[in-house]
């Protein structure tokens, strides 16, 4: 950290101290499991920061419960999310998935904020999510909350199109453990487990670990690919201590995870990556008669080896990146009245990226934020909420500058402020019906990579080309609005939503056919620069229709999503200068039908998915960025289990049993994957 950054950090710390001391924090210690058991439906804090029934929130929220996770055919989080309305899950390779909310499908999607117990787990240097590096096992998840639509006023930058909030289980007063051992075709093997241990008094410990191995899918001829292609390997270990004194709870934890897999980069080059991440986190929550207060802090470290062993497609160059994120958050939730609440909070973040493939040795930013949310119920059947957040970012660089210099170093000495906001109105139209209208504006922060990355292309060209970020790039503004209606008919829940989302100044990585977009630098040795750039605006709009219910031992859900995309971006005719074309990459139609049965000893679940055809980017062996047709597909997933006792269960599960090539939404056709295993619950 430079002296300047240190001074900023100290100043921000001093500024936040009164907030931490006087006004406490965000979510109080919420026992989601106990609250769900009491009111008979999941509880979420992801919409306005206070606990709410899932059926009463003023946003489109999907909550996947621990029971649904346990019976799902899915083998990971993207697999769980893919069966719900309003999300596109593209499994580009066996290990790499992207989750896009309401359109805008692209690799390394940086518009989705992913949290585990409030701690950011997406990788800050690009804003991407490596779902095999989250450091959390399916066995320890209490619920997964998917908020569709911007939630930046509550969560800050990068909750631009949605939020996935993963809530882990709290330990009880007795020791417990869950473990899964599974093996399948395509080299699949998974060992995962979690244990919760009371250590006396009100102190509890939780440990978890996982090991995953899986072969890569077969790449079709004609796609540019590195040699060799690595298979998926992911290993994780984590631990946490918690203690409770009266109405105060403290948590201290940490973890380590590593993941090796082949991925599509934002440029759409296939590249072998090796990530290693670790974190420490601590939190303090205090419950009071007037509400709750929280103080949280965490540090995430990442070592990423891009183009491992020179496997970055044709480039044959590697780009190691070190990223460290420090974040401190404080918030308070005040009950103004029996129904009305006010939430205020503050956050400070410092993210630093170091590596040889950058403008300078270190590219970093500091962000200070203040937010407030007001939730009012002027009438018994009417709820109004409004939230706003101000983020101020200071960008900087330090250390040795790469030659030749392509930007004025002073361009990195830059600061900007952005205001995000959300507003919502919920009207209970009848005993069983609710109408909601909400909207807002959020921002996707340009990543450290898009600010300061720099890597010379190894491809011989008459004038050397350097792929580079831009310190002048602006945050991406995302505007959204939605109108939704939910209706309960006994145990059946119906929901219809119309949405509109507009993305301004979408950022894309350089692709192919760059000639009109290259900057020539007449340094002693001429260099051409191809930059990350804001390539235009686009809008997505559509409807989501959902129904779910339960009949005796059967539970079911169906949903359909229609998504249309308008906007002029860089274009899709050859040569394609930038790898971003949401109209081509986002499916217009998606439909899912899920059925589950739980008869005690036996249970079974099945998911049928239809996805309409799309075109997805990839480089051909001719080193040309192209859009490849991905056919429409009907994929069928299923799982069946038999409980030998309350502790032991045997299961068999399969994904894409129908062998739909387009089921993965990737230029690499999907294959069928079947596995079986044993689950132990003690």
């Amino acid at each position, binding site marked *: 950290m430079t002296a300047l950054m240190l001074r900023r950090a100290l100043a921000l710390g001093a500024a936040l101290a009164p907030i931490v001391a006087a006004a406490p924090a965000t979510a*109080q210690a919420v026992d989601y499991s106990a*609250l769900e058991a*009491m009111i008979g439906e999941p509880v979420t804090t992801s919409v306005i920061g206070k606990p709410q029934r899932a059926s009463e929130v003023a946003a489109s929220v999907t909550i996947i419960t621990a029971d649904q996770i346990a019976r799902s055919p899915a083998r990971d989080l993207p697999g769980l999310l893919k069966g719900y309305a309003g999300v596109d899950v593209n499994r580009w390779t066996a290990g790499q998935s992207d989750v896009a909310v309401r359109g805008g499908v692209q690799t390394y999607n940086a518009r989705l904020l992913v949290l585990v117990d409030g701690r950011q787990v997406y990788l800050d240097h690009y804003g991407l999510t490596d779902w095999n590096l989250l450091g959390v096992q399916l066995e320890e998840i209490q619920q997964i909350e998917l908020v569709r639509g911007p939630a930046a006023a509550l969560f800050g930058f990068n909750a631009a199109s949605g939020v996935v909030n993963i809530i882990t289980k709290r330990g009880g007063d007795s020791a417990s453990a869950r473990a899964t051992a599974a093996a399948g075709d395509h080299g699949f093997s998974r060992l995962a487990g979690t244990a919760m241990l009371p250590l006396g008094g009100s102190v509890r410990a939780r440990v978890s670990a996982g090991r995953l191995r899986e072969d890569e899918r077969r790449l079709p001829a004609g796609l540019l690919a590195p040699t060799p292609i690595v298979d998926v390997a992911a290993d994780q270990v984590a631990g946490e201590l918690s203690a409770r004194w009266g109405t105060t709870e403290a948590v201290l934890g940490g973890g380590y995870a590593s993941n090796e897999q082949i991925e599509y980069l934002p440029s759409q080059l296939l590249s072998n990556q090796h990530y290693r991440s670790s974190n420490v986190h601590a939190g303090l929550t205090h419950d009071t008669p*007037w509400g709750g207060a929280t103080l949280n802090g965490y540090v995430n470290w990442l070592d990423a080896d891009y183009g491992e062993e020179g496997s970055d497609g044709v480039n044959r160059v590697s780009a190691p990146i070190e990223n460290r994120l420090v974040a401190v958050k404080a918030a308070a939730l005040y009950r103004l009245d029996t129904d009305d609440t006010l939430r205020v909070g503050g956050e400070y973040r410092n993210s630093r990226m170091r590596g040889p493939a950058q403008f300078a040795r270190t590219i970093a930013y500091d962000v200070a934020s203040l937010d407030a949310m007001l939730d009012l119920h002027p009438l018994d059947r009417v709820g109004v909420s409004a939230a706003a957040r101000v983020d101020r970012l200071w960008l900087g660089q330090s250390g040795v500058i790469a030659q030749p210099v392509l930007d004025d170093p002073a361009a990195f000495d830059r600061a900007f402020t952005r205001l995000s906001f959300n507003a919502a109105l919920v009207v209970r139209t009848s005993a069983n019906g609710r109408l909601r209208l909400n909207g807002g504006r959020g921002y996707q922060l340009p990543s450290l990579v898009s600010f300061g990355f720099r890597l010379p292309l190894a491809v011989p060209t008459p004038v050397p080309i350097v792929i580079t970020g831009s310190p002048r790039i602006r945050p991406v503004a995302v505007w959204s609005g939605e109108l939704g209606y939910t209706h309960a008919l006994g145990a059946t829940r119906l929901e219809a939503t119309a949405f509109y989302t507009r993305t301004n100044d979408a950022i894309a990585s350089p692709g192919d056919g760059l000639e009109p977009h290259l900057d020539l630098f007449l340094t002693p040795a001429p260099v051409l620069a191809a930059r990350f750039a804001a390539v235009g605006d686009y809008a997505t709009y559509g409807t989501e229709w959902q129904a779910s219910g339960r009949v005796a031992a059967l539970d079911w859900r169906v949903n359909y999503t229609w998504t249309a995309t308008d906007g002029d971006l860089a274009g899709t005719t050859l040569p394609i200068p930038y790898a971003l074309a949401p109209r081509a990459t986002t499916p217009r139609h998606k439909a899912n039908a899920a059925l589950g049965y739980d008869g005690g000893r036996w249970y079974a679940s099945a998911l049928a998915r239809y996805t309409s055809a799309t075109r997805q980017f990839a480089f051909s062996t001719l080193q040309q960025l192209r859009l490849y047709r991905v056919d429409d597909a009907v994929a069928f997933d299923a799982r069946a289990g038999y409980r030998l006792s309350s502790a032991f269960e045997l299961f068999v599960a399969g994904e894409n049993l129908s062998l739909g090539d387009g089921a993965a939404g990737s230029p690499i056709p999907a294959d069928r994957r079947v596995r079986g295993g044993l689950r132990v619950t003690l």
Partner: protein
Amino acid sequence: MSHVRELIGAAMVAGSVVAPLPLQAELNVPIAVRVVSFLQPPPSGVMPAAIVVAPGNAASLADAAAIERALGGGATAGKATLRTKRVPVTALDSLTGYRVAFVTAGTREDQGAIAAAAARSSVVTITSDDACVQAARCVVGIGSGARVQITVNRAAARAANARFGSAFLMLVKEI
């Protein structure tokens, strides 16, 4: 806003007085037990729980029997284990020593006395009778519909020296 609520609340109380007494449903015991776990500070160990009954009232006795059946030998509420014992409305002074009391159906005529005794002994009263809660004579009411509705009366809670976690209070209807 609070005037609107007061008017609505007053109308509901008045309505309950004027209208014929509704048939009271049996207490949803599993939910009542879970409510107990949200008391602050969280209860622990063996926790005596009273079942307030009106001797000779068939509805009250049936409700009491249903509560006992549901609880069996004792139910777990967080770190606490509930052990129930019947307390007749004719001996409300014996509520002393209890932290929680389940007020059965058919005790409406005695709810004033029950509230007074509960306040003296700092007992949290839980009932299926919404009118008892609306009238600030019971602390917690649990609705009988398919959708779980829990009502907490602030005045009754204050009188009983009862405090709940804020997350709990944000999910229930507080009056």
